[in-house]
């Protein structure tokens, strides 16, 4: 088990905690000021998620094999789901790629 990681200094944890909250605030303010951009929001959420998985959930301190077993498969499944978008637009206006 990853004893070293959690019994070590909590400094990085505090930093990550601050960073996640900061990103959350930036996200809200940016959305209010500039309008919600899907890509910007997803990027920021992905950064938050990365920080949470790696530092809060200590995946960074586990063996690389665990990261390899968990992350690519999940991302692959989620990426494949994007194949549904073409149909969602198409139904609204009945032509491919229309938005």
């Amino acid at each position, binding site marked *: 088990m990853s004893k070293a990681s959690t019994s070590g200094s909590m400094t990085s944890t505090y930093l990550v905690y601050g960073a996640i909250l900061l990103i959350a605030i930036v996200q809200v303010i940016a959305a209010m000021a500039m309008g919600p951009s899907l890509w910007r929001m997803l990027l920021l959420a992905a950064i938050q998620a990365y920080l949470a998985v790696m530092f809060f959930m200590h995946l960074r301190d586990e063996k690389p094999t665990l990261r390899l077993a968990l992350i690519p498969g999940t991302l692959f499944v989620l990426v494949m789901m994007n194949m549904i978008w*073409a149909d969602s637009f198409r139904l609204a206006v009945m032509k491919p790629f229309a938005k």
Partner: protein
Amino acid sequence: MSDMSVHAAVHGAPTSFIRKYVFSLDHKIIGLQYYALALVAVVTGMVLSWIMRVHLVWPNAPIPGLGALAKVGAPGGVVTPEYYLQLMTMHGTLMVFFVLTNAPFAAFGNYFLPIQIGAEDMAFPRFNMMSFWTTFVAFCILISAFFVGDGPPLSGWTGYAPLSAVGKDAGPGQGIGQSLWGISIFVFCIASLLGSLNFIATTLDLRTKGMTLSRMPIVTWAWFITSCIALLAFAVLMPACLLLILDRVTGTSFFIPAGLNVGDHIQPHQGGSPLLWQHLFWFFGHPEVYIAILPAIGIVSHILICNMRKNMLSHRVLIYCMMAIGFLSYMVWGHHMFLSGMNPFSALVFSFPTLMITIPATIMTLIWLGSLYGSNLRINSASLFCLGFISMFVSGGVSGFFLAQPSIDIYLHATYFVVGHFHMVMGVAAIMGVFAGTYFWFPKMTGRMMNETLGRWHFFLTLIGTYAIFMPFHYLGLAGNVRRYSAFQDDFLVPLIPVHKFITYAALFTGAAQLIFIANLVYSRFKGPQASPNPWECTSLEWSTPSSPPPFDNFGGQHPVVHHDPYQYGVKSSTGDYIMQTSPGPGAAS
């Protein structure tokens, strides 16, 4: 590291009947429970298919006893067109979920995966018990649909929306029956997730000393890969069922478009899309096909190697092929939807990986055939069923080439061609794998041999019978016979009725032939000759247990130590031409 607790046998052997056979924690009993459940489901499903076949060719013939079960659906025992669809839905759901997922994966996997890796039990025995009983609850919920309201749903095992989503306006069974279906599948998803979590943890954490990942038998790998697929596939079906239930119960419209006229009035729904259901369902549904077939592939390879007395040309490549299939299975679900109104561009994109799946499938077939060539195959019921599996896998798989291409699929979609295709490659092939596994492992599971003569009769009658049923399906499909029609009167399909009659006779005959199997199972369980500890002279760990069936902790308090790759055949040793995985000393170079 000290709390890397990886030991299962904390619980002692139970003595009471309830703890031993009903709420058992023993993976072997749970495996048998899954097997029994699958047996009940397969018999039920087969009887349903009989009724459907009889109705197809003799639409006015009363079925004895059916009138009492379904007063509305089959007045006087004569099946109505709606009840035909209801029977078909139950046939499909029972077969896909409770037979093809349960028998090769959950039943044999539960029984033999821990033994093959030298474990005393699954990693989480209570979890294991829960997953069986959750499956059982799902089964009961599904079966109860026969007895409530106006019967089971009629939307097919795929539960296509909006038919499945709009409620009882959509026809008999679409009220309470369809809701029960949705709940049953939801519960089944939970059970499967519990099961696959357990399988993965067991395979990774409970391997005995020397049992490295590369020393695991092919079939262990197959169960492992299957559980990885199931873990992520059922996770997608679960929210789909949730949304379907919401649509039905709370009036949301995830899967129902605006202005839908059903039952002579406009449905009070708008904003949803039936395509969304198909996407979510088939995102699970295609991996599900491989959940059914991969364990059978593993079982067949394992048994063939033992009976060929030599390793496959490359059993590693077989494992890589299974991984490739598992990977590709998530990229191809749209090939079920070429004619659903899906974006034509997506059809092109889905067609490509679908055709790519034929590459690992072909490599596997070539490895089987190439290994069989020139081998001195021991002919017995188990190895015969393995050959039957390969035959079915190829015959059914070849039609997949046609269906994978959108332009050809336009003609063949929703015809009997498709029905023939998936019954052969997914249904019968997987069942052949289950039969092979049963004949092969029965001595280990009961301590007695199955009757060989009956086994061979069973094989040849089944092989001939299933070909006689499902090969003509392809011709019917090419002739334009659409599936799910309940009768063929006054239309262009009338000339095909003789073919249908032939198929019905073949189905009745093949179903009756399965009685041989049941009789063999029951007879051999009690009267079969005693089996030696390793009757097939097989090398893997399940044949190293001190008794058959294995004791409660599988290895009688011992921890087996593995010294060899799984398939050391055709070598000189003190035992004959094979070296057990557990026997110390040098083996052949792997």
